[in-house]
């Protein structure tokens, strides 16, 4: 079966870093996602994770985002989820984490 590729891309934007994920985030590459999120935070600027092209996420993917969130909090940094797809939102709601994360509609809002 042919699946669309899973990709993670980091973009340096004016005043923040945008991590773009696409595909299905599961155990097969959530470690890579975690690394990308933590690397972006290490730069010391606000970080947005664009989830608009993520069609599936499991608990290991959510865990990577939770870790990013905690890491940012420790360092008083800003960490937001951008353009969360319906599939991701459903899992966040199921895990009762939709109120924990800061969700924004577009990358413009990463820097509040």
């Amino acid at each position, binding site marked *: 079966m042919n699946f669309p590729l899973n990709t993670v891309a980091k973009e340096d934007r004016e005043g923040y870093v945008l991590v773009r994920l696409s595909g299905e985030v599961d155990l097969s590459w959530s470690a890579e996602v975690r690394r990308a999120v933590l690397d972006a935070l290490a730069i010391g600027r606000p970080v947005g994770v664009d989830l608009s092209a993520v069609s599936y996420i499991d608990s290991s993917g959510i865990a990577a985002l939770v870790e990013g969130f905690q890491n940012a909090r420790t360092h008083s940094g800003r960490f937001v989820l951008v353009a969360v797809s319906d599939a991701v939102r*459903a899992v966040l709601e199921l895990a009762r984490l939709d109120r924990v994360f800061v969700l924004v509609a577009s990358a413009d809002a990463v820097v509040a």
Partner: protein
Amino acid sequence: MNLAHALPPPPASVRADGAPARASASEALAFLAELSQALAVSLDLRRTVTESLHRVVDFMQVEAAAFFLLDDRGDADRLDADAVPAARLLECKLCIGPIDLTGTRLAIGHGAAGRAVAGDATHLIATAAEETSIWHAADGFVARSLICAPLRTAAGPIGALEIVNRRDGVPLSALDAELLDAISVPIALAISNARQAQALLEQQRMRREFDLARRLQKSLLPRRRRDAFPIVGLNRPAHEISGDFYDYFELADGRIGFVIGDISGKGLDAALLMVRAASLLRWAGKDGIAPAAWLARANDELCETTQDGRFVCAVVGYCDRAARRVRFAGAGFPPVLLHRAGVFADYPSEGPPLGILRGVAFGEHDVELDGGTLYAFSDGATDVRDGSGKPIGSAGVRALIARHATGSAEARLRKLFSELRHLRLVDDTTVLTIEAPRADAPEVLLERRLRAAPEELREIRAALRGTLDALGLEAGLRDRLVLAVDEACTNIIRHAYGASCSGDIGLRVLRDGALLSFELTDAAPCVDPSRIKPQPLGDCRSGGLGVALIDQVVDEWRIEPMREGRGNRLILRKRIETIDETNEP
């Protein structure tokens, strides 16, 4: 048109001779604006049009006015490209003045109104004699001059507005014609809008009624039996409502009576006849009389009351509880098929459809099932179109039955219908099976073996989605169940096998009625179930979330260590709403 330009300038509102002057351009615009507004906010079109016509008479200072509409054989005709517009008539719906023309009819092209509609243009008849045909009365009223403007809509003219004779005796002018032309626009728009709103309401009402009819019909179909019962039926209407039906009931002597029927034609009247025929056939078989007599009784009754050339095709009969023998009779119904050990036998109807001819006799069949299955199906099944648009016919139905010959009768019927639906259903389709009841084994919907590796998960999720979609599960629930199974696999990979050992995961999805089970087996060291604990939801820690998600999604789950100290079986269960839209078992 440019109204300001077309109309003469102000000021004088009263001429030197005391006669009222023509309206000024600004007065005309104000009048038009006011009229448009009144028409736009009106809910009562008849009242508004009446008021508007009075206003027009007052404003244009004329002696008489009439409002014509094209007769309303309309809606059906408008859908018909071959409709001949010339055959339609204009009828005067409203008239003000010394003569009442209400009810007067004009052919298109006749009279000023007829010509205005035919030419889709405003007509001015400046001098009288030309046009006296409808505007004359015994007391000497005649039309000296008149103007008629069509009521234009995007779909062509729907009527006309006509004014006659200025009160000051001056002939109506081209300027008056332009003004009436402008006045006709908001009136036409209001009528057109009101008609559309009416049509919409009508559509909604029809939909509600169809929905009611569909639910009534569904309520007539027997409830699915959970116990070991020899008969299973399935009905799939091609549209909202069905002309097909089936029924079964138990007699005091232990026999089970059954009926399957098909009403000729489609639509609401076929559906209504279905309701009658279904209750009639049930009633006629309640005494346990022979199937041939049963049909004859129902036939005589239907002949009394069924008109319009409609008729009913049916098979009725009885079987014993163990379905060793089936005795039945058919009336114009497709042949009943016996499928036994891979071989088919045909049992055609030995009588004409019901409701055509009184007093006809019907023949019977008496069949020993001997482990076989009897299939009765309406012609909707044979009329299903294949890829090239041809009906699959009896051969196609046989091929489908042969292809889905294993599993419970319900599971087979469901697969058969699922395949029929992938082809093109053109008619209501109903299938009834009769066979010795089997012990109910859960149906296996999916069986996979995968390497316990993260790279395998994606394909498993896709396979699961496909399986759950085939059940018709709502997408949100489907995604949650996929997530739960994925989390279970992830836990097996990470925790049961861990980094140190590898192996396979067996996945089976089973359905037992409304209960879905997901069975995951592994060959990892036995897990201590008491050590698996979910993390509280909403807790912002990055571990232990998987089990919490599984807890959220499924009704129950348990883990059983296998015997030899190696291997675990994890079972997730979820009760689903019966996917019962059209009586699917």
